[in-house]
């Protein structure tokens, strides 16, 4: 018990003193997850709009499939990305395995279904009369889609934040394809997982507290946005 208590106090010291290693790990985590989130949104928002604004056979099934991938196991994505980018894999020549780049790709794959699914439901939530109004005022198909996206902006932003939350808190992909290399691919979650097993509770607790704080900030932001 005293060990945990002491670990907690030291962890707070690490945070308050803005310890270089802690800050470096947190900074990297944020950069990787923000990048994966932005890339995922660049892919998801146009595709979600295409799915929403077009009628085609199997549309409902496709949406159900996308929703199924919301709970994609991170280790499964990790394994898939690892196989893809490992030396013997089809993209092995790119030499990306155990780099932050491949971690971004992995997290992007993880959260793309979430962003896709939530953007589709955000667009579906927009009053149908908005589409009629835009068209009746002379908007083209593309302009109408932009209007609907603009109307759904808070819900889309909420989707983005959900995706970010999932990306920054996952450990499977970061560990499997990142490798927790100190000063290069070590992020909050992989550090907690490995430092704990090494007995360095202070660093783990400090990072754990920061991760919780990030989650708290995300939730507050999400609540604010959803109230709009």
């Amino acid at each position, binding site marked *: 018990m005293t060990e945990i208590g002491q670990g907690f106090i030291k962890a707070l010291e690490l945070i308050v003193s803005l310890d270089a290693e802690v800050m470096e790990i947190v900074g990297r985590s944020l950069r990787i997850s923000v990048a994966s989130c932005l890339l995922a949104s660049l892919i998801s928002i146009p595709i979600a709009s295409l799915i929403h604004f077009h009628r085609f056979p199997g549309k409902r099934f496709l949406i159900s499939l996308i929703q199924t991938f919301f709970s994609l196991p991170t280790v499964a994505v990790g394994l898939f990305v690892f196989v893809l980018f490992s030396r013997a894999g089809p993209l092995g020549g790119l030499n990306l395995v155990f780099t932050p780049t491949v971690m971004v790709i992995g997290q992007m794959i993880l959260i793309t279904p979430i962003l896709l699914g939530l953007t589709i439901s955000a667009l579906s939530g927009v009053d149908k009369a*908005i589409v009629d109004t835009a*068209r*009746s*005022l002379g908007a083209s198909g593309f302009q109408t889609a932009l209007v609907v996206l*603009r109307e759904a902006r808070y819900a889309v932003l909420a989707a983005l934040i959900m995706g970010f939350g999932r990306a920054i808190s996952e450990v499977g992909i970061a560990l499997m394809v990142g490798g927790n290399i100190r000063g290069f691919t070590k992020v909050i979650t992989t550090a907690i997982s490995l430092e704990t097993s090494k007995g360095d509770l202070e660093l783990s607790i400090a990072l754990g507290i920061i991760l919780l704080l990030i989650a708290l900030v995300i939730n507050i932001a999400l609540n604010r946005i959803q109230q709009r």
Partner: protein
Amino acid sequence: MSLIETVDLCQRYDERDVLKRINLKVDKGEVFALIGPTGAGKTTLLRLIDLLETPASGRIYFDGIDITESGRLRFESRRRMAFVLQKPVVFNISVYDNIAYGLRWRGKKSGDIREKVNSILEVVSLTPYKNRNARTLSGGEAQRVAIARAIAIEPEVLLLDEPTANLDPVSIAKTEQLISHIIRQYGTTIIMATHDMSQGQRLADRIGVLIDGELLQIGDSREVFNLPRSREVAELVGIENIIDGVITSSEEGIATIDVGGIIIEAVSNHPTGERISVCIRPEDITLAVSKPASSARNSLSGK
């Protein structure tokens, strides 16, 4: 040549005929009111004219050109019209941006847009609300934003669907004033749907009566309100006394009619033997205690 013409226009939803062979011509600069009860198909007809829907059959001509099918022509024609929906939806942005949207979509220069939007804001008395989010406005104000947004693009045809439904009396008066202003100022061709008969009378040059998907009568307000051509139209325009009868003789434009054994006379060109309905407006009946000496053609005793 008519600006808008529909030929045998039909629409079906789920095997139900919503519009049946609508033949309508609206001239340039004309104000045309579609009156009819709720569910008669007024909104559907406006949606078809604005090319938001494709008809089940029939043709639509805009300025003499058949625009029923070609996607490009439909888009180009839609850009020459504006439609104010019954329940106005405003975009979740400022009042100014709401009005500017249609102009931006047409690639107008920002200086021109600013000038246009500011002058329209004056017309609809919404200048103080310029920077407010349009979603925070009242129903009447939102309706004015919707109308402002529509007239900002200077449409050749303005379609209004129940422009004063769900509004309080003050907002109704303001909206009607605004529509009158548009008619006088811009000379826009207007097709409006309304279930408010007197509104149709006040604003429109001609009235079309749409009941159960059929355009039963078209004419100026005097014709429609005083000479309804069918029982349905008579009931719609508020004639409460409708009595069925048979014409027993017809001479020099005066018909003698047998209504359940009572003989009355009326101005009519219907031939002898035809079954007709006699419509008597309550305000046309004079009640007297004793039989008056007057020129009234029909005098009946009652209790």
